[in-house]
């Protein structure tokens, strides 16, 4: 073997030095004003189903950015993955609102320029600068898709049709109720209490002081004997409704559509108290190695046809209003099924997931943070 000389070391240092300024976009403090040449590679963390071949393959062909996606199973896992290895392992993440704030305040993601995303102007107004990805006018990502957590029931077994979340806290369906196994579900209880018990003064179901929080937990404890099962996977809930073990529960539109396709008599609604929901954002890592490819990806995923493809595949609502015609073209009737281009009133009836933090948003620091939510959830289930 040849010896490593000082010259080799110098050469290596020189090459490394050349590589650093090559990642042009994030140089300096200001936002980029145009998207540079792609770096040929893009490493993403995504929800399962968010990087399907039908829209990833055309993207790779068009931009030359080869996508390597890793699926994450939960918001907590997404945060963990974005932080590992100094945060430079992945370029972007499709974060839900209950992860995005943690990523922003943890300095794991960087600010982006929405002017570089041509379809941004076609987004529904509520998703242009939503509080879960925009802080003081600074955008930390581009909104993607959203959807409500709905009340699902078996139309043969549950009569009359429920109109309130009180149905899942009622003894009428004892042993036939199912809700998600997720600490963020405490917000659903709080949302119901904000209407059922106005004296608690709950304004935001994610900002709860200890009295409000304890009221939500005690409601969930009372609900527990009525629960058949806390479902962990969407397929679990589908199975419970198919077998008849559950007849009513908290759900996503995806389950409703799958069950209907299997001829199970179900229906879903957003009850009169409103609903919680998710709104996902593509965010760019603070240490992204392929920022140009990430910008190209965010632009591509915002185009009407791709938005429609993903909305139909996953069962959610696209941020881009121009996607609605594409949805009907790809699958007739799907636009209204998934509330594409929904009214402001419908959008505002949904309280989107966000990370509970100690800061209550009103200058007080006495709210319960997410760690407390996680512990209370485990202890509630007992």
């Amino acid at each position, binding site marked *: 073997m040849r010896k490593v000389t000082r010259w080799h070391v110098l050469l290596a240092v020189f090459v490394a030095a050349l590589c650093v300024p090559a990642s042009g976009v994030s140089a300096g403090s200001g936002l980029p004003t145009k998207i540079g040449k792609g770096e040929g590679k893009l490493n993403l963390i995504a929800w399962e189903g968010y990087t399907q071949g039908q829209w990833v393959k055309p993207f790779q062909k068009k931009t030359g950015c080869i996508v390597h996606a890793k699926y994450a199973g939960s918001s907590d896992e997404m945060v963990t993955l974005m932080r590992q290895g100094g945060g430079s392992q992945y370029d972007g993440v499709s974060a839900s609102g209950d992860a995005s704030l943690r990523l922003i305040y943890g300095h794991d993601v960087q600010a982006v320029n929405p002017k570089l995303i041509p379809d941004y102007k076609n987004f529904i107004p509520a998703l242009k600068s939503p509080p879960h990805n925009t802080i003081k006018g600074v955008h930390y990502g581009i909104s993607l898709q959203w959807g409500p957590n709905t009340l699902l029931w078996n139309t043969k077994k549950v009569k009359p049709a429920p109109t309130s979340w009180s149905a899942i806290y009622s003894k009428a369906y004892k042993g036939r109720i199912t809700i998600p196994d997720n*600490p963020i579900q405490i917000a659903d209880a709080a949302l119901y209490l904000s209407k059922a018990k106005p004296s608690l003064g709950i304004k935001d179901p994610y900002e709860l002081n200890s009295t409000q929080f304890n009221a939500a937990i005690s409601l969930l404890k009372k609900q527990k004997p009525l629960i058949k099962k806390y479902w962990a996977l969407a397929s679990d809930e589908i199975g419970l409704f198919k077998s008849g*073990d559950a007849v009513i529960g908290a759900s996503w539109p995806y389950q409703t559509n799958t069950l209907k396709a299997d001829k199970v008599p179900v229906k879903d609604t957003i009850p009169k108290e409103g609903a919680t929901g998710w709104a996902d954002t593509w965010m760019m890592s603070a240490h992204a190695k392929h920022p140009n490819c990430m910008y190209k990806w965010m632009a591509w995923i915002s185009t009407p046809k791709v938005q429609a493809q993903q909305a139909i595949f996953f069962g959610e609502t696209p941020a881009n209003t121009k996607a609605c015609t594409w949805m009907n073209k790809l699958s007739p009737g799907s636009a209204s099924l998934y509330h594409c281009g929904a009214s402001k009133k419908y959008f505002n009836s949904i309280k989107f997931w966000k990370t509970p933090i100690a800061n209550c948003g009103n200058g007080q620091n006495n709210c319960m*943070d997410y760690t407390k939510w*996680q512990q209370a959830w*485990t*202890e509630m*289930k*007992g």
Partner: protein
Amino acid sequence: MRTARVRFTGFFWRHRWAKALLLLAPPLLAFALVYLASLVALFLSSFWTVDPFTSEIRHAWNIDNYRQLWQGGAYHSIAFRTIGIAAAVTVADAILAFPLGYFMARIAGGRSRAFAFVAVLLPLWSSYLIRVYIWRLILDHNGVLNWTLQKIGLPAANIGYTNWAVWLIFTYIWLPFMILPVYGALERVPDSFLEASRDLGAGGWTTFRRVLLPLTLPGVIAGSIFTFSLTLGDYITPLLAGGASSQFIGNVVYDNINNQLTPFAAAFAAVPLAVMGVYLLIARRLGAFEAL
């Protein structure tokens, strides 16, 4: 070169312990590094805390995690449920395994013994998950069990998604691990012992109680180490087939690690470790390790 080799083998011939050490060194080293070191790391991290805002681990020594375990009543019931179901599974498996092991060891001929072996081991060839899901189909509200009960005019059982279902599935899944050591122990009992017992006037029950059972107890205990520890550490069956009150220690550990609360998970994981330690000490006193 050749003399060196002769001297080398000569050394190992003269010093037998050196040869044994050389043979055992790689597995021992792997054991010490991988197993013991990770156990120590686990134990140490249970004395740390997590920053509630950034979810980063803070290396500040304290016993808050253990205090929380001790004070939160929910964790007591989760621990007791886990240990209770593990014990119930062990007892059920021992009761089921004994007659089957007896048949295989003492009654069955060559062909039917081979068949029994295949029947016991065959389920292990299919995936654990498949077996849990099949049981879910059986115990469902509209499942095979309720359908059968209805056909013969009995009321529905509705044990799907309850702790009964968890117990039943565990009993089924770990049964082979009990049958094999029980079979081994039964096979080692000489026929002459049973004949002597009968000659001395003991009936079938007395022979079982005073001869067969004491001689095979170490085998049962050996099997129980498997069934008990496997149930104690599991979290998949409670997750898939359990109901609203079916959390095991493993489920809480899994959730806490997902939630980036690793120190608390480590503290709770120390509980089954301690339980298993005590169990193994008792098992050793009862002579289980000679039957393995």
